[in-house]
């Protein structure tokens, strides 16, 4: 019994030890005004705010708007990147034509283009989605290209001698062979997606988590601002977990994902 508790504690509970201590310490320090309340809200306040936002339906609205922007950007940028990566990986004339240009553009951080993008697209959602698309493009492009390029040549040769058509080679050998690399690109893109979203939403948005933070700043609602940060963390974690699940399912064949 005691031993069970011990293993349970050392395996699972210990992870939460430090966060809980920090949370209690934080509550204590703010409650007794060691730290001024206008700088840091109490955890209980943040929780209360979260509950209020949830009940009023405001939270749901903001999350939906933010998630929509993020996913649209991911779909457009990631989709184009995936296709260009596949084509460049399989046809070297196309690679010669396009790749070095893309490598040059890649070195520019997407957020550095924010002023230009506002000039081009105005301050609406188009600008935000453009920035996200641009940001997620490169990790997915590079990893798709790399993945296709480094599919085992022996397997492709084998597929040919075993009578696979071009389409068969693509769907049964090249795509599954490149998938581990493509998924790495996807996970990397998700990080960039959130980062770009956070910055892009602070520019003159009228809804979304970023907007919520900005308007909270104007009214000095520090609890709302804190909650927004936590929200971003949770959404980021959710996206990462989704990508991980996807990997586990799609790469079940891979020795790294097999249970011993």
């Amino acid at each position, binding site marked *: 019994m005691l031993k069970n508790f011990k293993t349970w504690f050392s395996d699972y509970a210990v992870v939460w030890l430090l966060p809980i201590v920090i949370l209690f310490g934080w509550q204590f320090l703010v409650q007794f005004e060691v730290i001024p309340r206008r700088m840091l809200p109490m955890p209980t306040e943040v929780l209360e705010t979260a509950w209020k936002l949830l009940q009023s339906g405001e939270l749901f609205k903001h999350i939906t708007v933010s998630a929509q922007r993020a996913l649209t950007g991911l779909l457009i940028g990631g989709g184009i990147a995936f296709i260009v990566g596949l084509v460049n990986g399989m046809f070297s004339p196309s690679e010669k034509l396009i790749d070095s240009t893309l490598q040059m553009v890649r070195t520019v951080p997407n957020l550095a283009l924010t002023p230009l993008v506002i000039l081009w697209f105005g301050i609406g959602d188009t600008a935000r989605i453009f920035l996200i698309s641009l940001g997620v493009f490169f990790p997915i492009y590079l990893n798709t290209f790399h993945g296709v390029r480094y599919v085992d040549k*022996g397997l492709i040769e084998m597929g040919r001698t075993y009578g696979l058509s071009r389409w068969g080679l693509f769907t049964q050998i090249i795509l599954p062979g490149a998938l581990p690399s493509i998924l790495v690109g996807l996970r990397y893109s998700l990080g960039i997606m959130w980062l770009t979203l956070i910055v892009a939403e602070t520019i003159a948005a009228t809804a979304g988590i970023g907007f919520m933070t900005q308007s909270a700043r104007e009214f000095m609602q520090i609890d709302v601002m804190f909650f927004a940060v936590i929200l971003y963390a949770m959404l980021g974690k959710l996206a990462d977990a989704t990508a991980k699940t996807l990997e586990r399912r799609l790469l079940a064949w891979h*020795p790294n994902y*097999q249970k011993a």
Partner: protein
Amino acid sequence: MDFIVQGTHLIAQGIKKSFATKTVLRGVDLEAERGEFIAIVGKSGCGKSTLLRLLAGLDTPDTGMVWIDGNALQGQNKVARVMFQDARLLPWKKVLYNVGLGVKDDWKPRAREALEHVGLLDRENEWPAVLSGGERQRVALARALITRPPLLLLDEPLGALDALTRIEMQQLLENLWLEHGFTALLITHDVDEAVALADRVILIEEGQIALDVPITLSRPRHRGSAEFAALKGRILNRVMGVNDDRQPSLRVLQSVV
């Protein structure tokens, strides 16, 4: 698989092949009768693998022709199946799906039948990653034989296996060959394997056929027999470039062949 497949009649005529500055094959002539089992031995780099790739249609010769049942080979050799040194199973397909690769209609029962022939029916739902080296090659063999090819090209398929597994695989290969009747070309660096399996052993040296020895030992062959050892010794000596005359025992061997 209870009917006999008609093996291919194969002729290679004046095959030459160079890569960049290196001439690999300098005029090879080879004929395989229907259902014949030929082993090709030689030191590494002698061009034996190149020859096999040309016969599979994976490469084209600079000069010379390959005839398959009287038709000139152009592009890929459609009647041939190739087994490589590494099994080249698709890691993202389960064993059964690997065996059925490229087979269109009604492939599942046929794949099961092929797996049964190599004794791995119980592993049909495994990922290739969990199989041993010998099992992988057995799956590759099932995959090669599922379409009942008239010609089987084997590029050192047993080279990476441990000695015991290799002998097991040789017996399996011989049984399937006897049963199916396909023409087989086996590249190997193992003279023992060549003598155990082949109707003829061919030695390639510096891009040319240097020796062509019919093996008339009756099957099943016993590795322990004196004839077997004598033949093996003779070929091995020739491969290693030992002069025949200085080996007194070899005169006896010549009378055997």
